[in-house]
């Protein structure tokens, strides 16, 4: 059994298409420029429409938890749940940090996005040490 994967829907299709090309997108407000995650129907700061912007996908670990009681079937026995603070505006993204000993993860660790193919439709934006 694999872990739960997102469903490509009308709102998030461009995000997952870009992910397959190895590009990280983020909703950016048409009006105030605020970036948010996960995608909402309107900008949560000023309620305007938003468009997809390309993110360089680099940042630092804002916080993390080394999880040894997995969320459900299909998850690894040990994984690092993390909030990454992206350098392009300081938006926070929920992800997993991989390619590092979980005990070495620290707040402030520089990281960059690394896409991993999970299914035909979904490549997930993990983060690895930069």
């Amino acid at each position, binding site marked *: 059994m694999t*872990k*739960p*994967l*997102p*469903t*490509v*829907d009308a*709102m*998030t299709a461009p*995000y997952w298409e870009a992910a397959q090309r190895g590009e990280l997108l983020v909703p950016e407000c048409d009006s105030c420029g605020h970036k948010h*995650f*996960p*995608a*909402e129907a309107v900008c949560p700061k000023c309620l305007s429409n938003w468009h997809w912007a390309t993110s360089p996908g680099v940042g630092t670990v*804002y*916080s*993390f*938890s*080394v*999880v*040894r*009681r*997995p*969320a*459900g*079937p299909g*998850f690894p026995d040990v*994984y690092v*749940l*993390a*909030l990454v603070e992206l350098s392009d505006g300081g938006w*926070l993204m*929920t*992800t*997993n940090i991989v390619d590092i000993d979980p005990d070495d993860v620290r*707040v*402030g660790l520089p990281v960059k996005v690394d896409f991993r193919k*999970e299914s035909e439709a979904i490549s*997930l934006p993990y983060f690895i040490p930069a």
Partner: protein
Amino acid sequence: MSLRDVAIVGVHATRQARVIDDLTPMQLTLGAINAALDDAGLTRDDVDGAAVGWPGPGGLIGDSTSWARFFGHPLHLVSEGGLDNSGARAVLRAASAIETGLCDVVVVGGGSASGPFVPGGGSPNFTPPAQAARGPIGAGGQLDPWGGYVASNFALVAQRHMHEYGTTREQMAEVAATIRNNGHENPEAVMYDRGPYTIDDVLQSRPVASPFNLLDVCLVAQGGAALVLTSLERARDLKQTPVVVLGGAMEFVRGAWTGGSALRECRDLGKAGAKRTFGMAGLKPDDVDVMCVYDPTSFEVLRAFEWMGLCGEGEGGPFIEGGTIARDGRFPVNPEGGCLSHAWNGVQQMTLKVVEAVKQLRGQAGTRQIPDCDVAFTSMAGSGAMHVEMALLGRA
């Protein structure tokens, strides 16, 4: 117009256990309602408002409108479900409705059990592995693959708090050991007689989601609770010493579980509510004699001291060190064992906080009675969930 004119007149906590498979959720809930009404000296004929989780089958699960058919007369207040039926939030909603004249007697509560006829499963679903089955989080389930759940989301806040303020594992472990030792001595607690625990026991227990170990996080159990509220005027003719709502507030900063929980989003969560609550009561945080606060994790109790205003931001850890929250300490916390040891049962653990506060104020808490207990602070939810509700209680 004042919440102080409304009283909690009946309370009941049902049996709590890891699994309650000899009762249906309906039987458990009815037991809680009837016992709370008995405690008050009222009957179902007196009730005209229900904020009670509807267990089904039929109707919308949680929605208390379905109860209207079972009281023999129309209800004047119902509640759509979930946390509106529990704890401080339900108390404040009911008290507001009574005070403004919408209704006269409100029952609050509900319960979880896994006996036969459980529609949709009776176990609490906010924990792994059932967490994965509760539906997509974020548009298209954008957050689902990352393995966040309740404990690990609270952990994200705690880890950042440690980084910014130097909060230590030992401080969290003192919270866990103290509250668990209270439960160890309470025959009604699911974890009765399972201790005692030392700080070191907590630090050595199995890692779950760093910084939390097994003994830092609450257990999952089943059970129920109920409260009865009416006007203070009517309460004076009833069986028990009336406990009034001195003040209260609710505070929400985002939908629960709609993103990884970040300290920067919830840093001030509860502060404005606490100011409102104590202002309404004309009291100071320092006047509190017992705290029945939400403890899904050890860390969350440290944060409560900060947002209540008992210490500065980031100072919760040092503040509680050295016995502050023990039953004989300056600010006793969860004398009956809290979520960590008494029970976390879905949503009605929020109501258990109010039940314990009322028992303490009435002087009915037996061997765990806090002496000279005049003011009790109760709260529900917290940082990981991005909301908090609180009620300050005292005798009329």
